[in-house]
Structures are given as structure tokens and as C-alpha cells.
């Protein structure tokens, strides 16, 4: 179906969950949705529209924590980004890894680097950082400072 029909169908089907619909350009659409409805909409886009799960990118804007789930529809050359806003103190959201295995690693990375807790993730353990990295320190947060006292930040000659 064409691009307009597809977007109209999404709008009609999830009208109560969509908070904001931003049609930025012919190839980019940003849809802000309620955090509770992420699994429902993601499954619909991935399974019914045969979209490809591209990636999820976590953003720590100072007032709130944001996650964007990007889905690509090759035939229409369209990229749908579902935006979800969580509160910054205790960001929690339902995990979509059980639905499709492609999202498994990226959620582990976001939980490790940004401190977002994914409920229902198969094995939410560390993916990237060393074992000696202190618990609860999230490097990609805006308010991250250097915790390692003997780190050398100049050339260290």
C-alpha cells in the first residue's frame, strides 16, 4: 500500500496511543507514543508491515530520557521512528527482545550505557563495559564525570 495509506492506517489503529505525529520529510516519520504501548505498536510494524528493525537509540536529554525505535520499510524507502519519553530518575520500559531477537543486544547496551531498565529482557547482563566498571555509573548520561582517579587525560609522557 502507498505511504499515505500506511500512515493513515497507523494513525487510525493506534489513535489513542499516539501523542504526536511528525511527518518530517518523504523518507522520515517520527511518531511519539505512550511508553506502555511500545510492544503492541512495534510488533504491528515489524510483523504486519514487514518492516526491518533498524536500531533503537537512547538519548539523555536533560529533562527526560528518550528512546527512538527505528524501523525501515525498504519498498517505500521510509523510516519510521517511534519516540518514547521516560522519566529521567528511574527509566523503565517493557522490553521488545522476546518479540524479535534483533533487539536483544541493543537493549543490553542501552541498559548498560544509559541505565534504562528493560522489563522482561531474556538476559540483561553487561555487553560492552569492563567488569571493573562501577555499578550505577552510566557513561552516556549527560551528567557523567570521570570516576577513575588515576586516569591520565593528557599525553601522559
Amino acid at each position, binding site marked *: 500500500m502507498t505511504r499515505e495509506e500506511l500512515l493513515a492506517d497507523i494513525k487510525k489503529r493506534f489513535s489513542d496511543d499516539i501523542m504526536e505525529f511528525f511527518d518530517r520529510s518523504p523518507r522520515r516519520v517520527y511518531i511519539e507514543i505512550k511508553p506502555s504501548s511500545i510492544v503492541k505498536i512495534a510488533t504491528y510494524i515489524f510483523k504486519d508491515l514487514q518492516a526491518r528493525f533498524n536500531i533503537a537509540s537512547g538519548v539523555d536529554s536533560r529533562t527526560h530520557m528518550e528512546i527512538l525505535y527505528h524501523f525501515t520499510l525498504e519498498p517505500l524507502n521510509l523510516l519510521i521512528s517511534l519516540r518514547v519519553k521516560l522519566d529521567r530518575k528511574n527509566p523503565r520500559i517493557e522490553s521488545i527482545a522476546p518479540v524479535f531477537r534483533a533487539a536483544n543486544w541493543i537493549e543490553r547496551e542501552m541498559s548498560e550505557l544509559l541505565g534504562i531498565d528493560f522489563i522482561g529482557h531474556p538476559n540483561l547482563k553487561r555487553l560492552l*563495559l*569492563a*567488569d*571493573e*566498571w562501577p555499578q550505577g555509573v552510566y*557513561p552516556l548520561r549527560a551528567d*557523567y564525570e*570521570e570516576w*577513575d582517579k*588515576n*586516569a*591520565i*587525560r*593528557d*599525553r*601522559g*609522557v
Partner: protein
Amino acid sequence: MNLKLRALLRSPWVFHLSTGSCNNCDIEILDCLTPRFDVERFGILLAPSIKHADVLLITGIANRKSTIRLKRLYEMAPKPCLVVAIGECSLSRGIFMPSYNAPVPVDKVVPVDAYIPGCPPKPEAIISGLVQLIQKIKGTL
């Protein structure tokens, strides 16, 4: 000691260690083994395991996870062994200096004998660096 070093320099076996690099330098090291630069003329071979290595080629910024293995492998290498840092990342972490995962440069983790700058260094630069190191060691014997 210098008898071993003298013997070592006849045909230095090389062990390549990538501690968090973008594999440009690693591929330039492998380029040295292929027909065009062919360091086997000088007896330089890739050692199958750390136990046979005479020269340790280190690339990469020694990030936190790799430093643990870097230290362990340096202890496992039979002494006397020479250590050569290849590429900007292993000299002073180059463009990744402020990275939160690279606390200290490589020469704070293991004593480094020769530095070969370049991002990535040309295979000729790696060969000339090794040759200069061998001459320097031979010079002091």
C-alpha cells in the same frame, strides 16, 4: 642477557596484539606479511602463540577490558622480549584520548621499546621502525 638478545634478533618472531583498535594498523601489520612487503625475508614471522614471541606488536588504545589481558600476555611472553607500539592509538591514544574506556596510554601498562606513529603507518614505516629498533639494540650490544 645480550647473548639472548643477539640470538633473538637473528629472526624476531612477532606476536600481534590488538587492544581496542580500529584494525587499520592490524591490517597494515598483516600487509607486511603478504607478497609485496614480505617481512619473512628478514625472518619476521607471526608467532602462533605468545610463548614463541620475541617482539610484541601492540595496536589499539588499551581499553579497560584489554589491559587485563595485555598485562597477562606481557607476563607470559618469554623475556627478553621487545615491545613495539604501532599507530597513534597505541602511542598516546591519538584521537581517542578523552575516551572514558581508555584510562592510560599503552606505555603506562607495559614498557614500550619503539614507537611507530602513523594513522595507519605505512607497511614500509613498520618495517623501517623494526629495522631501526634492531640496529639500536645491536648498537648497544
